[in-house]
């Protein structure tokens, strides 16, 4: 059944993005908001808005009962969850479905299965998607550990089979090291967890983060190529690209095909992303997890393929078949996105919920700015610090970096402190220019003082 009245259970820039997509499809938009968000841009742009609770997210954007009441009250026939908040909550999806309302995303069962690390790994293996090779179960002797390590390949990570966290994790490069480290790990595991059992898996050193965008309609599935998001701080992506220039064509084709295989095997509906670690030394990739929602960095995939991912997910969840075939989705050029956060990079990224006094936005061919700002807007302190994303598109990666630099130099957000200085420094860095980075690269780069800092700190 085609969607006519879409309820947006999110805020910030993604709510604005969803409203624009829905309006383009002629769909009536209903924006949920907390008491602190009554004057946000998405509320102004939506056809109607409804308050769902107090400022703290758990009383509003995470409050299933309040959202369900607002959905009933406004007569919505579908819900778009955006990212974060309840976008991957099986309980929310079940409540929405029980009310006879369409959820713009996969089924509760799919979200549940992919949200469980062990189940997701099993589903990936069953679909032929490579996972980090490891021991099948617990390993109890050093000889067994050596046999498993010979099979999965060095370097190997030795972990306690019981318990979690970082306790007892060691990395061995050779069998000799393994024979020295495994007994230590066993002892530590026995002391910490009362169980000396070990678990071994291949250690991927200096991995790159590569992910594949997929779309499914419940029967068929396609990919919109890959993204690289290796520049991360505290596990948060800061700079994202499409495509991943470190991949050769054959690896890219295998990677994307593996993602489609998993999407088809789970009868996936909506937009989703499979995340992988990529070991550039061995040219191997390993599935780590699947995100069953739209992602912050989706625009770079839109820029290189021309597919509107948010519109497509609304259409397929409304019951239509995919509007594009795989052979119609073609890569064109290179795209980069940077996240503009309300943080002061000169002060250890201290949050900066200021008031936007004046705004100049970058414009031009191949430049896109997804945001929720307007002049006079007071950034509320209650939610995350993402203000928006600058996205550029150019024929090559080098040209995209140049275009990003020019776009960032053309932005003025008076009254705010943002991460723009970080991105300008990255755009000028020789390693970033050369594509020489991995997920452990950015933090040491910051620690080494590559950013001008203010004050005595």
């Amino acid at each position, binding site marked *: 059944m085609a969607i006519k009245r879409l309820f947006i259970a999110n805020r910030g820039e993604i709510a604005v993005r969803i409203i624009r997509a829905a309006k383009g499809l002629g769909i009536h938009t209903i924006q949920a908001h907390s008491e602190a968000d009554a004057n946000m841009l998405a509320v102004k742009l939506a056809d109607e808005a409804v308050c769902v609770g107090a400022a703290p997210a758990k009383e509003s954007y995470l409050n299933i009962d309040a959202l369900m009441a607002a959905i009933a009250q406004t007569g919505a026939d579908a819900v778009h969850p955006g990212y974060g908040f309840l976008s991957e909550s099986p309980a929310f999806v079940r409540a929405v479905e029980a009310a006879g309302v369409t959820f713009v995303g996969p089924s509760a069962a799919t979200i549940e299965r992919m949200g469980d690390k062990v189940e997701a790994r099993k589903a990936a293996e069953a679909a032929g998607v490579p996972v980090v090779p490891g021991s099948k179960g617990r390993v109890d002797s050093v000889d067994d550990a050596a046999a498993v390590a010979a099979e999965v390949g060095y370097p190997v990570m030795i972990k306690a089979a019981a318990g979690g966290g970082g306790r007892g994790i060691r990395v061995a490069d050779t069998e000799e090291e393994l024979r020295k480290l495994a007994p230590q790990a066993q002892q530590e595991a026995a002391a910490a967890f009362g169980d000396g059992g070990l678990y071994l898996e291949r250690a991927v050193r200096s991995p790159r983060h590569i992910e594949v965008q997929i779309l499914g309609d419940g029967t068929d599935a396609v990919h919109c190529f890959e993204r690289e998001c290796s520049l991360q701080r505290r596990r948060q992506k800061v700079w994202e690209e499409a495509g991943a220039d470190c991949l050769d064509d054959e690896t890219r084709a295998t990677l994307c095909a593996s993602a489609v295989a998993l999407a088809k095997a789970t009868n996936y509906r909506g937009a989703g992303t499979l995340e992988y670690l990529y070991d550039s030394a061995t040219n191997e990739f390993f599935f780590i997890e699947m995100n069953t929602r739209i992602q912050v960095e989706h625009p770079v995939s839109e820029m290189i393929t021309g597919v509107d991912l948010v519109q497509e997910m609304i259409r397929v969840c409304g019951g239509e078949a995919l509007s594009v075939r795989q052979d119609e989705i073609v890569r064109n050029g290179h795209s980069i996105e940077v996240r503009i956060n309300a*943080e002061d990079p000169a002060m250890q990224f201290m*949050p900066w919920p200021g008031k936007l006094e004046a705004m100049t936005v970058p414009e031009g061919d191949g430049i896109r700015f997804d945001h929720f700002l307007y002049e006079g807007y007071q950034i509320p*302190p209650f939610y995350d610090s993402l203000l928006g994303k600058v996205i550029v598109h150019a024929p090559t990666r080098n040209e995209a970096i140049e275009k990003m630099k020019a776009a960032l130099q053309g932005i003025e957000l008076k009254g705010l402190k943002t991460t723009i200085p970080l991105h300008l420094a990255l755009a000028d860095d020789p390693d970033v220019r050369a594509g020489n980075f991995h997920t452990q690269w950015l933090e040491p780069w910051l620690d080494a003082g590559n950013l001008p800092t203010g004050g005595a700190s």
Partner: protein
Amino acid sequence: MADIQSPLPGTFYHKPSPEEPAFKSAGDAVAVGDVIGLVEVMKTFIEVKSEIAGSFAGYSVDDASPVTAGQVLATLD
């Protein structure tokens, strides 16, 4: 009587975590630099430290309530 103000807008907490007791109770001695609460701003927790010494009189706002920059969080005698 002296006031301790919030350095930032956000959500003010009396306790280091929900299971733990409040940083200070009425009558506690407060030294310069003592943490009296946390302000959560954009998912980051910032410690609120006293810039003066004294005896803790009490919190001026409830635990887990929204505060503005400069708002009085607690008073010292």
